[in-house]
């Protein structure tokens, strides 16, 4: 018998990406604890509101509530030294100290040459771990809200819960206070996030899965053991789990890769601190505000598309769409290159999802994107990258069976597995931020993605993917080339698009990439279980 995962004890943001459950709005609050006793009282005041990962029955909550702590937050709560010193070192360091690993700070320059590397960060993040520590970020609180039906406005419950949170801080004489220095101007009480909406001909609005470059996001998130009821798991796991062998097919990834206190893919417990019941059912979270340079992106695509159209002898709009797809690994509507490699095949498939009623069309697209068909593909049968380039975003962040050591350039290796990828998976959470419509803005306007990652080891999972697979290309025989979408292109500006010689077309190399995505702040958080929140609130964390 498979053990039931105690979803009631795990925070809801670990188990589900709220955005996909029709919560198109979010507010992220960052708080500072002045005083440990007040901090514990605060945790006690809010912990009954925390949304767990339990399977939903009946109506959805209008607004969710989740909470996490930085290392300095746990320190400010006076957790025992033994508990603090057992925490992972990257969590103790915090995201700022890891800037050279993550590529947030130019690794070709010395620290002394780049003292203002975080100049573009929002004040709340610039002030974090800076100066006298009075503005250190200690607590992260997230609220996700439903939309008022067919509008791009959040349910009123979001404002109500925001007021309630402010009241709790007032009640504690601001000894736990909300850092109201969010946004580029440093004037916002919270970081707001929202989906991009599509406006129907009759004026009604529906949320989409688009981010501001126009790509469709959040399709291949990992599925782990215990996340779904068994009857759902058989289809959810396809393209989202691990591929163990041709016979076994897709299997859920071990719980311990994402939830502490459970066996992980090395059949061990991911090392964490003591006491065990404080860490169990908790997880670690990376919060990054990723700004999108919309102006640069559009300009580079236009310039390259002009040359691509000429070299490849195709119309300009086909060139534009193809380049975007070859950068990401999916066509802009989310259809994978691996299943529909050419523009013509994509157009043909796209026609099957069309409908005269835009609402029906949206539902059909959504049904496709949540179906195994949008995720069920491999890379071992495309080692030369004729379908999906080896350096495409998708192929870097989730390498699937691409790195199987027995893969061969000229064979399809039907026995390839995801063994070298299953310890590097991350759960993607978050929403875009910026306007609710697509395609407005430039490099200076506020738009991007609130990028959150849940994993048991930030070092082994998130930081590895970020450093080795996004900011570097050696594992893919691509030298120093970085991810064409997320990578730092200060020095490395290339992305190769291989071409099957049989097509008679030459390969194409984009060589004018600019940095399209830049960090605007963030930190590493511990997402405690509901039991651990109770222990913090009661002051009974005892590692002896």
């Amino acid at each position, binding site marked *: 018998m498979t053990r039931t995962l105690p979803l009631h004890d795990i925070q809801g943001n670990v188990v589900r990406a709220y955005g996909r459950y029709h919560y198109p709005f979010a507010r992220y609050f960052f708080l500072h604890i002045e005083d440990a006793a007040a901090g514990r009282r605060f945790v006690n005041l809010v912990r009954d509101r925390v949304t767990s990962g339990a399977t939903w029955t009946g109506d959805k909550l209008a607004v969710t509530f989740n909470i996490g702590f930085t290392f300095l937050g746990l320190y400010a709560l006076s957790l025992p030294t033994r508990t603090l010193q057992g925490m992972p070192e990257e969590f103790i360091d915090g995201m700022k100290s890891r800037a050279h690993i993550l590529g947030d700070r130019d*690794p*070709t*320059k*010395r620290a002394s*040459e780049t003292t203002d590397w975080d100049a573009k960060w929002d004040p709340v993040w610039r002030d974090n771990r800076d100066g006298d520590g009075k503005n250190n970020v200690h607590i992260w609180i997230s609220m996700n809200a439903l939309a008022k039906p067919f509008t791009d406005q959040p349910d009123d419950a979001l404002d109500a819960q925001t007021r309630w949170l402010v009241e709790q801080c007032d009640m504690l004489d601001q000894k736990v206070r909300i850092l109201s220095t969010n946004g580029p101007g440093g004037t916002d009480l919270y970081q707001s996030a929202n989906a991009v909406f599509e406006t129907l001909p009759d004026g009604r609005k529906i949320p989409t899965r688009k981010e501001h470059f126009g790509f469709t996001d959040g399709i291949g998130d990992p599925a782990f053991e215990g996340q779904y009821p068994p009857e759902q798991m058989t289809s959810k796991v396809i393209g989202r789990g691990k591929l163990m062998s041709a016979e076994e097919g897709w299997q859920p990834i071990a719980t311990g890769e994402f939830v502490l206190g459970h066996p992980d893919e090395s059949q061990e417990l991911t090392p964490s601190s003591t006491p065990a019941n404080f860490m169990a059912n908790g997880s670690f979270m990376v919060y990054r505000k990723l700004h999108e340079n919309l102006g640069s992106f559009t300009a580079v695509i236009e310039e390259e598309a002009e*040359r691509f159209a*000429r*070299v490849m002898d195709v119309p300009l709009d086909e060139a534009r769409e193809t380049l975007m797809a070859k950068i990401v690994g999916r066509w802009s509507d989310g259809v994978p290159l691996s299943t529909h490699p050419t523009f013509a095949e994509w157009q043909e498939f796209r026609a099957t999802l069309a409908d005269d009623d835009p609402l029906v069309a949206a539902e059909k697209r959504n049904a496709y994107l949540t179906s195994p068909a949008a995720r069920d593909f491999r890379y071992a049968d495309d080692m030369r990258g004729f379908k999906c380039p080896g350096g495409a975003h998708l192929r870097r962040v989730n390498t699937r069976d691409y790195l199987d050591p027995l893969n061969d350039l000229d064979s399809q290796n039907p026995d390839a597995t995801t063994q070298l990828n299953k310890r590097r998976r991350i759960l993607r959470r978050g929403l875009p931020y910026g306007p609710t419509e697509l395609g407005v803005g430039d490099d200076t306007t506020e738009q991007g993605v609130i990028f959150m990652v849940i994993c048991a080891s930030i070092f082994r999972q998130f930081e590895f993917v970020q450093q080795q697979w996004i900011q570097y290309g050696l594992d893919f025989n691509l030298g120093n080339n970085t991810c064409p979408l997320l990578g730092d292109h200060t020095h490395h500006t*290339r992305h190769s698009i291989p071409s099957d010689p049989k097509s008679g077309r*030459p390969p*194409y*190399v984009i*060589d004018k990439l600019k940095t399209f995505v830049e960090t605007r702040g963030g930190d590493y958080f511990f997402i405690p279980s509901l039991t651990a929140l109770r222990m913090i609130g009661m002051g009974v964390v005892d590692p002896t």
Partner: protein
Amino acid sequence: MPNFDTGHYFLTALVPIRDGMTTDAGGVEVTFIQNLRATLAVLPTALQSPATEMIGINSPFARDRSTHFARLVVLDDVIFNGREKSDPILGRIEGKDPITPEPLDELNCAYLVFTADFDAVLAEGDPLPKTLDLPAQNRARDAWANRIWEKMQEELTDVFSNCEGFDEVSDGDDFARYLKRHQVETTMPFNDYWLTMPKFSDLPLLPILGAVAVPLVLALVALATLLLGGDELPWLGWSAAGSVWVGGILTVILAIAAVRWINTNGQKPLPPGQYADLPGVLKSLYLQKTFTTFAIDQQGASYEELHDAFGAFLDEHKPLDASGPTQAPGVISIGRPGGIVAGEG
């Protein structure tokens, strides 16, 4: 002979560090180990990171165009890894004393470990040899020792003067003899410069097993015959007792020969990769970068344009001339300061 493989020489030397005290550059009395560590700490590595580029002084080993890697490290001691494992019940019966500690095993002094991977050639830029007998290997090692002595005598003296017996070294030949005296066999050489997989000397496993199995089976059948009371082998009619002896001895001899043969086969050096000498590797890195840029810049060019541009490329970058233009040794990329050497022509 794993000191020599793939046309490269893999040197490992363990040089004892002097016991006692010396005076460091600041006039403070320190141990030779302290002084050696301080010397190594300021020995330039290579221009491979923003911090080392700021220092601007390249590794002295980069002065030699045949040295791929060199490493100097102080080995203080080899840590005792606990008592020998024993079963507590058997130990009790054997009268083992679990209270008294087992004797501690230690190195007699601290050592400087010096490892280097260099082209097994008599002069920089010579072609890499496929095979090399022992005297020729030694000549390649001694030639390298002479070369680095000539190019970095000052740094070598700063380092090795903290080691035993270095007082007697006054020229390149002395230094070669000094390294030879402290050399230990390299048991796992490694490099990977092959463009395509080399031809491995595959083991004919079945014939080897067969050669050992035939006399073994004969001996076993003869033994069974004896035990069953027979004294002649069925069909063959050979003496059973004699067959046990002959078969047994043959099995032992052939088994030993097979193991030796397998070991010798395993020790055959692998062939050098094409362009795997240091000048070749540096030129390859240089061409990899320049040719990639060339190919990208020519996207969409007509055949005539491409032809002219490639002619210009050949003139400028001289692909067959390893002397230059090429990547400078000890510099991380041709894009970094001092990354390109112009060459002789």
